[in-house]
């Protein structure tokens, strides 16, 4: 009896401690203060962020993961970027380019094997051919490219990103930054300065006192300014020492260089320094990844609870759900503070927020109805949406907002309301799926539970109709403010209207008695199809003012999702235990 009270607390607290533990900075690696360097602020993509963010996002784009396996060890993104910038000869041997397309593999003389990762050294002899193929495919509209063309352009862009990163702080294959600084005014060096300025991926030298907030300089730009006779940027010398020390693997010199550079940046731009510090903590904590793991654990536990010791396991699963929600919420709050914007700013963050909304609603349902169904649907929705978010993360997820979207008021009202509408529709769908499975699997389904599930779904559908309608109309008002028309039948607007209409149909079908429990639940599952189409499908059309980008592989994922939903709808319509021979038939 005591254990039922204690276990939820033990499990919940230990999950929370584990999640917090991940946010701790990692110690020195082989004596190098890598974290000290990775937390330095740089300007990239129009905003100040820690170097760590650039490293993680670049590696994610190039390799699809935030770490590299090399010579039996796992390198962090920070270690990788340091190698790439200061020891390119080592980095070039690390297998970071993921290539799946068999035709592209054929182009570089490789067969499709279980190993899909290749080093720059391996690609080296084929770069000219890859460039030729990519240049031929680039003028073709992205939507009209063949699979090979898309793959080769994609690989070429990743190689170019790698190349830029390699040549941001010093030119690869030259004696190094220190020598270039010494020869800053030599006329022959001008070409090197401008090459460095053009290739630079990020700007690491902070604006000097009295300069504008966004006047960050890249090393190349600072050298160009120096060559023109202006005083050298004070950050160049420490950077050159850091570069040389890391190249020579001299930990002590590296660490002292980092300390010197840190104190310079802190004195020039303390705000940028602390922002970068916060963001690196966020990067390390990976709250959405942590939340995903906690949700899936809770989901597994709730499944077990229906078979074994429900009194013990259901509260424990609920405790895990609460911790997951806590981590998820903290992550959202952290993002909002870092970015200074409402929670939803792009497709990635919409997935994170849809999941959050569904989790919160699910927690409320669990409090109202108990039985673990609320926990099950909340964890399933949270886990599912965070997985989707993981796959939507392409590069920087906190990128700057384009002018037309740059309105915190409308992002906070229209976008948030409509996203909550998505959450609700998905949650209703999840409840309906739970109902379907319960109906077919439970050994002795009591009508009581069935009624409870239907009224849960009904309540949530009302809720989503409210939010999706208000969100849609607010979107119309925003459009009226910025484009001059309230409604233009744009694909994204149509998608939103789709959800509103479908929810309205479900409610009218219930009020008129045309659909009863089973019908309502089947329709609620179809709501998942409608919502996923309106959320992602319209982006695949690639027309209209609203589309955020074309997604290729997402198309297959979406098709599979829709197929499963249609199957579940069929299952929901079927009478219970249709697959068992009826007793009467057995006798005959």
């Amino acid at each position, binding site marked *: 009896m005591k254990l039922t009270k204690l276990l939820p607390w033990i499990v919940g607290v230990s999950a929370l401690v584990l999640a917090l533990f991940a946010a701790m900075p990692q110690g020195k690696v082989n004596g190098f203060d890598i974290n000290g360097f990775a937390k330095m602020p740089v300007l990239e993509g129009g*905003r100040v962020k820690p170097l760590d963010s650039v490293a993680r996002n670049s590696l994610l784009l190039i390799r699809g993961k935030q770490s590299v396996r090399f010579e039996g060890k796992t390198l962090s993104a920070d270690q990788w970027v340091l190698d790439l910038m200061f020891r390119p000869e080592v980095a070039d041997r690390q297998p970071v380019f993921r290539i799946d397309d068999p035709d592209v593999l054929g182009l570089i003389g490789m067969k499709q094997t279980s190993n899909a990762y290749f080093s720059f050294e391996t690609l080296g002899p084929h770069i000219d051919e890859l460039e030729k193929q990519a240049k031929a495919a680039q003028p073709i509209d992205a939507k009209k490219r063949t699979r090979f063309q898309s793959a080769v352009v994609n690989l070429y862009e990743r190689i170019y990103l790698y190349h830029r990163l390699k040549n941001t702080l010093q030119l690869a294959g030259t004696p190094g930054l220190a020598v270039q600084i010494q020869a800053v005014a030599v006329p022959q060096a001008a070409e090197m300065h401008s090459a460095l300025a053009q290739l630079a991926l990020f700007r690491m030298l902070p604006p000097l006192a009295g300069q504008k907030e966004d006047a960050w300089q890249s090393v190349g730009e600072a050298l160009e300014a120096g060559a023109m006779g202006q005083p050298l940027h004070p950050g160049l010398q420490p950077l050159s020492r850091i570069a040389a020390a890391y190249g020579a693997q001299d930990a002590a010199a590296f660490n002292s260089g980092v300390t010197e550079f840190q104190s310079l940046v802190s004195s020039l731009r303390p705000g940028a320094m602390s922002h970068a510090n916060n963001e690196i903590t966020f990067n390390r904590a990976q709250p959405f990844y942590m939340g995903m793991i906690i949700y899936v654990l809770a989901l597994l536990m709730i499944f077990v609870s229906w078979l074994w010791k429900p009194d013990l396991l259901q509260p424990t699963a609920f405790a895990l759900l609460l911790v997951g929600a806590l981590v998820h919420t903290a992550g959202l709050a952290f993002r909002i503070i870092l970015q200074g914007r409402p929670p939803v700013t792009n497709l990635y963050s919409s997935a994170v927020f849809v999941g959050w909304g569904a989790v919160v609603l699910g927690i409320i349902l669990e409090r109202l109805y108990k039985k673990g169904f609320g926990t099950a649907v909340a964890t399933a929705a949270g886990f599912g949406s965070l997985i989707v978010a993981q796959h939507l993360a392409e590069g920087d997820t906190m990128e*700057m907002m384009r*002018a037309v979207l740059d309105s915190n008021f409308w992002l906070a009202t229209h976008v948030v309301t409509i996203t909550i509408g998505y959450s609700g529709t998905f949650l209703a769908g999840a409840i309906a799926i739970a109902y379907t499975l319960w109906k077919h699997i439970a050994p002795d389904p009591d009508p009581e539970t069935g009624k409870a599930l239907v009224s849960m779904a009904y*309540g949530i559908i009302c809720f989503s109709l409210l939010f999706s309608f208000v969100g849609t*109309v607010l979107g119309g008002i925003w459009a009226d403010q910025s484009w001059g*028309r309230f409604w*233009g*039948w744009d694909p994204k607007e149509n998608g939103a209207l789709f959800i509103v*209409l479908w929810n309205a149909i479900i409610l009218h079908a219930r009020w008129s008695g045309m659909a009863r429990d089973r019908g309502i639940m089947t329709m609620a599952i179809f709501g998942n199809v409608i919502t996923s189409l309106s959320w992602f499908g319209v982006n695949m059309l690639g027309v209209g003012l609203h589309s955020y980008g074309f997604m290729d592989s997402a198309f297959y994922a979406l098709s599979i999702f829709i197929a499963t939903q249609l199957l579940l709808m069929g299952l929901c319509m079927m009478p219970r235990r249709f697959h068992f021979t009826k007793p009467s038939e057995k006798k005959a």
Partner: protein
Amino acid sequence: MTNKYLLKAWDFISSFQLTIVSLALLMLLVLFCTLAQVPLGTYGAVNMYMRSFFVWWGPEGSTWIIPVFPGGTLVGLILTLNLLASTFKRLQLTWAKAGLWLVHIGLILLVSAEFVSAALQVDDRMAIEQGQTVNFVENSRSMELAIVDVTDPNFDDVFAVPATLLAKSKTIALPGSPITLNVKHYFPNAELSNRGPMDPPSIATMGVGPSVKIEERAITSNENEMNATSAFIEPVISGRSYGVWLASIALGAPQSFTHEGHTYVISIRPTRHYLPYALTLKKFSHDVYAGTDIPKNFSSLVQISNPSKGEARDVLIYMNQPLRYEGRTFYQASFGKGDTLSILQVVKNPGWLLPYISCVLVTVGLLVHFAIMLRRSLKRRQEKVS
């Protein structure tokens, strides 16, 4: 007998079944309209599916078409009727139904707003270069043939003929001017190129026309493409012909002829509406985020001068912050020419306020209704417990 049928019709019009069927039809239309935007463009797809009574279809290459699906206008009308009928039939005037009343009135308003804007909304644009003053808006969806008397440097006398009239008539007299136009040929859309030595001779005799090869093209409704409206015309003044000219939106250089000291410039251009006031672009600004080409903001500082009201003031138009003036709304839409040209979208929609009101009504209505339902359900649960 008639009473019985009327009752039946009334039952049908006010039935839930009709609501659900119309909503489902509307959903399908929305789906078709979305998918059709890839080949047809938004404007074409909306006209085909939404702003029509029927969706028409005919086999490719043939001229006959048949209605295959109810269009948005028809479904919208049925839905409105159904909404009105069922509101009066089923909704009792009680406080318990107050929420639903608000929702339905709001919805009727919203649908009528869409009808109003379909019927009355006018979309134009205004392109102003820095320092320039412009007193007209242009509609790039419709063209006009303009004969402009530019003799007086202080003002232009404009005689304009809508392009659609060129399609219908052979001769057009321009009221207020001595000119009569003979329309030799009209092209709603065409492709112009340099006439090679092997090409057949042009029917134009004056201007650039004789050296241009012109081929008719199908009309496009795609936003990103423009119809190169063109025509061969012959201006005649008191029996004297001034030659056959090729006028086209695709031709840049002005062409003109002179009659009794008056110089007339011939062109085809987007239809202009002249305003009783003028806008001067003082400054256009456009910033990007440092080190990227992501636009951070666009804004146009314009001066409105309205002599009839004695008004002359500066206004800053930027994203999400349009200028509403004299029934028209000016939005920052685009820019060009190295950030010295600002393009404003100009919209006239008398019904623009309706959605705002409707939004408030429906939101409040839904909130009230769901609150009433929630209270009822909680009460029921409590009764069950006790």
